[in-house]
């Protein structure tokens, strides 16, 4: 898989938040790869740094947060090395765009939907107001928005959550970006809408030939939509691989627990829960951050941080359990 060129390559990313209680190490050496036209699901418990990852990619972390190390290589250049100007002119909205959890609150209440979409368009393409407006209508139509001519003239508060999210997607895709970061795009919507939106994202990106980083805590969604999955725990990526690999032949004890704790039909007995609680990221556990909760923890785990082991092509785990396995190969 290392041969196959990757669109985005995050290496050893460190993002800290300097609060008065102490430094919150939200991301501690995160590695992540997204290939072209690939749908990567980023899963993990709330507070494990999924959203921070998304924002870090676009460098939208505002104080007291700060990206203090690592690289985010996108299309061959390190985003962390770009100037604010370059970021906003070349990357944000043009190459990489993002949609958020709360569609309605992420649209400016005082502007019409149309004007907000066309604003995005006019930012990155030299077209006049009218054209931009036309385009925003057409793109809204592509998002399957009923009667876009009317919608463009409406204000966000007049839209339903689903419609608002459609509008957001339209806005995000308006300058056909290469990467779309979708941060919990459906968690605030009804289940029925959820399916539609996910479908929409799926076929839109195939249409626009973009990649997607789908941030979610819902394994179901991942199973349905994603090609690849990265599991995060407490600011680290702990397992990465194809959907099938992760769901069928997952390696990491945490992934194990995560999957077990998803309720299924015809399930006997009570739901499985992972022992202990999510560690506080100001003073995270040494070594493997999961070891205090890990059923198979060993002495070593508490001492040093496990590297990524490629247990099989395109499937890597950071856990000492697989130290030997890799040796064998």
């Amino acid at each position: 898989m290392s041969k196959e060129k990757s669109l985005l390559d995050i290496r050893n990313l460190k993002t800290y938040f300097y609060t008065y209680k102490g430094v919150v190490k939200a991301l501690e050496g995160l590695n992540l790869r997204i290939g072209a036209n690939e749908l990567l699901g980023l899963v993990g418990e709330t507070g494990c740094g999924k959203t921070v990852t998304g924002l870090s990619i676009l460098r939208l972390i505002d104080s007291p947060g700060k990206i203090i190390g690592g690289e985010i290589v996108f299309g061959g250049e390190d985003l962390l090395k770009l100037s604010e100007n370059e970021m906003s002119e070349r990357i944000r909205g043009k190459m990489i765009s993002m949609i958020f959890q709360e569609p309605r609150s992420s649209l400016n209440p005082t502007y019409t939907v149309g004007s907000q979409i066309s604003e995005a368009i006019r930012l990155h393409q030299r077209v006049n107001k009218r054209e931009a407006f036309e385009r925003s209508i057409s793109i809204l139509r592509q998002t399957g928005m009923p009667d876009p001519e009317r919608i463009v003239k409406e204000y966000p508060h007049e839209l339903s959550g689903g419609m608002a999210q459609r509008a957001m997607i339209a806005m995000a895709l308006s300058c056909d970006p290469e990467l779309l970061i979708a941060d919990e795009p459906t968690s605030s919507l009804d289940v029925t809408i959820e399916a539609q939106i996910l479908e929409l994202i799926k076929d839109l990106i195939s249409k626009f030939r973009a990649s997607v980083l789908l941030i979610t805590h819902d394994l179901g969604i991942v199973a349905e939509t994603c090609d690849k999955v990265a599991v995060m725990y407490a600011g680290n990526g702990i397992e990465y691989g194809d959907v099938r690999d992760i769901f069928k032949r997952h390696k990491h004890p945490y992934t194990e627990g995560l999957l077990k704790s998803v309720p299924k039909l015809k399930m006997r007995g009570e739901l499985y829960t992972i022992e202990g609680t999510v560690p506080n990221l100001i003073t995270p556990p040494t070594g493997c951050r999961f070891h205090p909760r890990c059923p198979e923890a060993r002495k070593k785990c508490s001492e040093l941080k496990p590297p990524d082991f490629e247990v099989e092509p395109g499937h890597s785990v950071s856990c000492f359990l697989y130290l030997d396995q890799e040796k064998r190969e």
Partner: protein
Amino acid sequence: MNFRAFVLRRLMLMLIVLFGVVTITFVISHIIPADPIGAILGPRAPDELIEKLRHEWGLDRPLHEQFINYVWNLLHGDLGKSIRTNRPIIRDLMERFPDTIELSTASMIIAVCFGIPLGIVSACRKDKIPDHVSRVFSLFGISLPVFWSGLILLMIFYYRLNWLPSPGPYSTYLRPPPVVTGFISIDSLVAGDVGLFIDHLRHMILPAFVLGFSSMASIARMTRSSMLEVLRQDYIKAARSKGLKERAVVFNHALRNAMIPTVTIIGLNYGSLLEGAVLTETIFAWPGIGSYITGAILYLDFQAVMSTTLLIAFTYSLCNLIVDILYAFLDPRIKYG
């Protein structure tokens, strides 16, 4: 409820409030065991005369009667006659009110022009030096007694440097324009006297600044805090993620939303400027209602006091109403109809 109903309801409430204001003023001004006649005639006048005039002005009648009379006339649009100026109060107010309006409008313009930028600056540079400087600057405005700072400024800019003209609405050697609207600025233009117009504006600078300085602080403060709040919203992040430049984010997306609460403050302040004028007008020899009502209170000219307070209260409530209506236009989420 639709817009019309909303406005009507508000007007109704306004009437109630105004009636309350009149009542309160009446009660307070009649607690004083004295009356204008004695005040105006001073110690030299013989008592018989005072008794006679009291009767003539109906001041010897029982209070409730006087009150009912006043309100009755009020309902017929008659503000009564001022004992002090011996003229219909409406005439006095027509003479004075425009000047006050001119002054407070000018100072509000100043306050807004300074206050909002200051607010923006300190919001965008929160807890950095620019923030501190602009806050200290604007807070100075509400930390000085105007009657003092006014005099000092006069001494510096008029008396010593002679950059700005004397106190008073226009230079002593100029004659006022023929009264059309009562607003000297407008009348002078109507009369085609540009010189006078400019002179009038120059005379307005100092008092307007002194007066406006005081409401500048609250405007800046409100702009700042609402700006800070807005900048934390999702749609600001979204705007950034679109690739908007920071200034574009601030001015196109943040400011507009931040203005909504600021407008309220502006409206409220305008109302309070009218009375802030009381002190400023005295220092700058400005012929507005400020000096008028002060005199009226000192001479216990009840009817004048009541009518003037009524006028001010009315303007104030009107400002509030206008602000609420403005809301509908600024914030699409609010709909009266």
